[in-house]
């Protein structure tokens, strides 16, 4: 799995000279209020938005690599399961797009369904899935592509605490098992504390602080004190 290095990332109206290093296999939580630029930073890493600066995976500059070739798994906040495909076909979508042999598709989909305990959902369409089920299917759809980097944009938002807790544990377990370099976006400090190897805090497009969970919690910079107090 690659390490990620962001150098002077700037986007129109949002990010300002963001520099961030994420270690190989690390789970880093991007923390910040709504509008801080967390999702934009994920879009930069995925190559889904215009930016200035440089993105490196290991030592390789990714600026000219299109999204579909960056090996990035991206779970959007609203999941965006394809409504016309059932769970099985949603998960198999990426494999079909990259012309994977049919027998391999079946094997891979079945094992990811088992990994996330969603085998019983495989014939259901997104309209018939609950919020938690949609997130599991979305996660399976991203993981099946064996990405080198996993980007999770507030994947637990609007879920009840029990379901959110269960999925959080699963994400943690999957991360440990697959050792994926992962960026997890949230505005929930407790969620960040539970998941993160390290936390990076974005405030109005600027990276204000980064460090281990306890460093952020016990020695927060001024802008982040308010944030922790609210949470």
């Amino acid at each position, binding site marked *: 799995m690659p390490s990620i290095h962001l150098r002077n990332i700037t986007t129109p109206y949002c990010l300002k000279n963001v520099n961030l290093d994420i270690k190989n296999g690390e789970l880093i939580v991007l923390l910040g209020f709504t509008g801080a630029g967390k999702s934009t930073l994920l879009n930069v890493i*995925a190559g*889904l938005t215009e930016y200035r600066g440089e993105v490196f995976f290991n030592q390789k500059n990714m600026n000219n690599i*299109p*999204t*579909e*070739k960056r090996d*990035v*798994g*991206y779970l*959007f906040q*609203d999941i*965006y399961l*394809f*409504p*016309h*495909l*059932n769970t099985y076909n949603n998960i198999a*979508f*990426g494999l*079909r*797009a*990259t012309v994977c042999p049919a027998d391999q598709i079946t094997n891979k989909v079945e094992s990811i369904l088992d990994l996330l305990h969603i085998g019983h959902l495989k014939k259901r*369409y*997104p*309209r018939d899935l609950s919020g938690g089920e949609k997130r599991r299917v979305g996660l399976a*759809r*991203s993981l099946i*592509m064996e990405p080198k980097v996993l980007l999770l944009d507030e994947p637990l938002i609007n879920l009840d605490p029990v379901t959110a807790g269960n999925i959080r544990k699963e994400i943690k377990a999957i991360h440990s098992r697959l050792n994926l370099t992962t960026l997890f976006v949230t505005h929930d400090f407790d969620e960040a504390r539970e998941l993160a190897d390290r936390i990076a805090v974005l405030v109005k497009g600027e990276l204000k602080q980064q460090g281990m969970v306890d460093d952020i919690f016990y020695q927060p910079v001024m802008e982040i004190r308010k944030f922790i107090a609210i949470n």
Partner: protein
Amino acid sequence: MKKRTILKNNFLYLLPICFFLALWELSGHIAQTPLFPPFSKVIIEFQFLLSNGILLQSLGASLARVLIGYILGSLAGLFVGILMGVHRVVEQSLSPLISILFPIPTLGWLPLLMLWIGINEALPITLIFICAFFPVAYNTVTGIKGVEEEYVKTARTLGASKWFTLRHVILPMALPNIFTGLRLEAGMVWRTVIAAEMFAIPTGIGALLTNAETLIRVDIILVCLMLLSMMCSIFERVFLWLEHKLTGAWR
């Protein structure tokens, strides 16, 4: 319970039609004039026209024109609609032209086309082509534009090429809109072909209507109108069925 509901719905659907036909039959017998024949006389004439082949011949001529014009117009509309939906430059170039041409009623083109094309088979086919083209193109663009950009981004992060995304994400998700265009025009093309045949072409259901009017044969006119209603309804229902078949599972 379900069977009873279906029976009840069918009964409610058929009741007004039966009442209308009974009233028509009764009024026809009371009126006693060839200008208002009873329903039974129209059915007898329907059977007669069917048995001597006139009705099938006329229907065949109209149907062939409708199918050729509709299929060509829809395919062209789909093609242009997809191009406009996918390429912003094409959309910006063609949108003003389509905005100018789309509001012109199809039959408004008839005098111009009679002069340009002449009175031959190409005339009704061209009219039907125009009738189908604009709504299908418009609805295809609308459908494609209605697909949220995040679905396309998601497909890209999953390794899908632009072509794969178009085929497997954008077009399937635009299908409901595309079908709306196809279904609405499926009935409209029949109205257009009948009008073209009444004015300009000596064969088909429209021509049969004009001949019947000349001979003051109201029963034949009513046969033609009933047939027209049936064809419009069949075409619309075929597309409704297709739409349900292709999108019903996920909508």
